[in-house]
């Protein structure tokens, strides 16, 4: 049965690999966070200031990533752009968490009309393309930093609500919840003290992937020109770069690499957590 032992060895190797995914992701994401937080310390030109250097210069000593069409330093814009992406990603997901949890909990714990009504709304909103909807919202209500955060939050909450509701439905039936009711725990305590903590392992990876999605949406919006011009944004940079692809490749390459890195890090972390948390639950 040599195939069996071979397969066992491979499985073991992949188990360790899975854990390393979480570590790798964590490292990348931490690096990104550090960059975002310490942006001012890492740059020496203010990002949006024009003509700090001759426009369209390729990477050189003074400007490691080169300069763009208005003479802005691309390196500082990239660093601050990372900060923007992270801020928008986290803030919008926060909005989604607040709304989504509220609705998910209400729909999952209290059955009946409330549940049906809320779930109808959620399901319908889910089918709509997130990106397009966010685009339209920002385009109409004004291209500002806050609007973008709100718009992304609005398109993100239904997915979370659905997940939380599903978790609630399954956890609610478990015997320890019944036991909690038998002791006389009030509903609010049951929801937040008993059910929610047990829903977290399933919810956290999803949240991480949502942050990912939010960052990508913001970048996409920026790329189409729908962004706040007063805020450094990786997407907007790519938008500007588009016109000068033939001559100034550095305008596109560096922002994109950083963006991809953020996404890779979050993907690693999210995926790794999904697999890490599941077998652990199975072990019990």
């Amino acid at each position, binding site marked *: 049965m040599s195939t069996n032992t071979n397969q066992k060895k491979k499985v073991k190797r992949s188990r360790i690999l899975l854990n390393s995914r979480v570590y790798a992701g964590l490292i990348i994401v931490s690096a990104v966070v550090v960059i975002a937080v310490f942006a001012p310390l890492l740059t020496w030109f203010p990002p949006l200031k024009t003509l700090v250097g001759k426009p369209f210069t390729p990477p050189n000593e003074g400007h490691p990533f080169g300069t763009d069409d208005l003479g802005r330093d691309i390196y500082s814009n990239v660093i601050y752009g990372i900060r923007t992406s992270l801020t928008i990603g986290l803030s919008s997901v926060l909005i989604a968490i607040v709304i989504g949890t509220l609705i998910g909990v209400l729909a999952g714990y209290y059955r009946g009309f409330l549940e049906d009504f809320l779930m109808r709304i959620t399901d319908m909103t889910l089918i709509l*393309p997130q990106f397009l909807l966010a685009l339209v919202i920002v385009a109409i209500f004004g291209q500002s930093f806050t609007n973008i955060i709100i718009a992304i939050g609005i398109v993100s909450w239904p997915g979370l609500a659905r997940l939380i509701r599903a978790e609630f439905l399954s956890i609610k039936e478990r015997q320890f919840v019944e036991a909690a009711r038998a002791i006389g725990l009030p509903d609010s305590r049951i929801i937040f003290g008993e059910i929610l903590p047990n829903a977290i392992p399933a919810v956290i990876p999803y949240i991480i992937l949502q942050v990912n999605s939010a960052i990508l949406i913001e970048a996409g919006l920026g790329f189409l020109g729908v962004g706040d011009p007063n805020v450094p944004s990786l997407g907007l940079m790519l938008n500007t770069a588009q016109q000068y692809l033939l001559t100034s490749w550095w305008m596109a390459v560096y922002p994109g690499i950083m963006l991809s890195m953020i996404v890779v890090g979050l993907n690693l972390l999210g995926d790794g957590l999904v697999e890490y948390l599941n077998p652990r639950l199975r072990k019990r």
Partner: protein
Amino acid sequence: MSQALNFIVKRLIQYIPMIFVVIVINFMLINLAPGDPTYILAGEIGDEEFIKATRSRLGLDRPIHERLLIYISNVLRGDLGYSYLRSEQVSKLILDRIPATIFLVLSAMALSAAVGILIGTVAAARRGTLDVTLSILSLIGISIPYFWLGQIILIVFAVYLGLFPLGGMVTVGAGYKGFDYVLDVLRHMVLPVLTLATFNIAYTTKITRASVLESLTQDYIVTARAKGLSERRVVFVHALRNALIPVVTYTGFNTGVLLVGAILTETVFAWPGMGSLLYDSIKLRDYPVVLGIFIYGSIIIIIANLIVDILYGLIDPRIRVR
């Protein structure tokens, strides 16, 4: 047979309201926006006459519930407004562009399905370094944003290597006909489709690999091997057939994401589809078109999901019970 019909009807009933939801959301957006909704619908530039005409055509002086009904009936009739900037009916503008986009999407879907399934199966069958490399590659593949990838591919293949044209669907002014025309389009198509397909290939590979891996641990595979079938047959014929189900599900329902991706990719390559139209309209502040693309885009996605859902239900009888 009636059970299948029953299922189709049930699905239609589920999906059609969503189209209404899209329209209603659009309506809400128009009216909640700051400023006079007329400007949104007429575009920001328009002379006095045009604005007055728009106002009366859309009944903007009437109470809100009447306006909603007028709006819905307009949309359903295909009237999405008029773009003053381009002197065209919005719907005509969009409908002209849709085929190009769908062409891209379908090509990318086909390519990614074929390649992804193949690679994923191979990766699952032979573990080891090949597998690890592929995993890393597919991780990178799903992480790179469409638009940036497009730019990089454009830079590398078109600018530096000069292998492919820089953009557009046809070489302007060349006047190719017949077979030459087809070849020309194909040449222009390669880079955009490649860009679009990358994410999907990576994701399809990932899913196929996971799915085939799981099938391979099943008992019937051990039986097949015991019967003495060649490894290749075992993997490709037996394991793959069952593993395909989640893959097909994913591919089908992912059309929406692909459509959005197409919109972004088109901008990079100036491919004359809905995406470039959207990009241009945003720049020109031609709101009626932007909103129109939102509606049509959403409707296309909804219909695509509906078709996949129905096809899926017809193929796999277990689903119909829902």
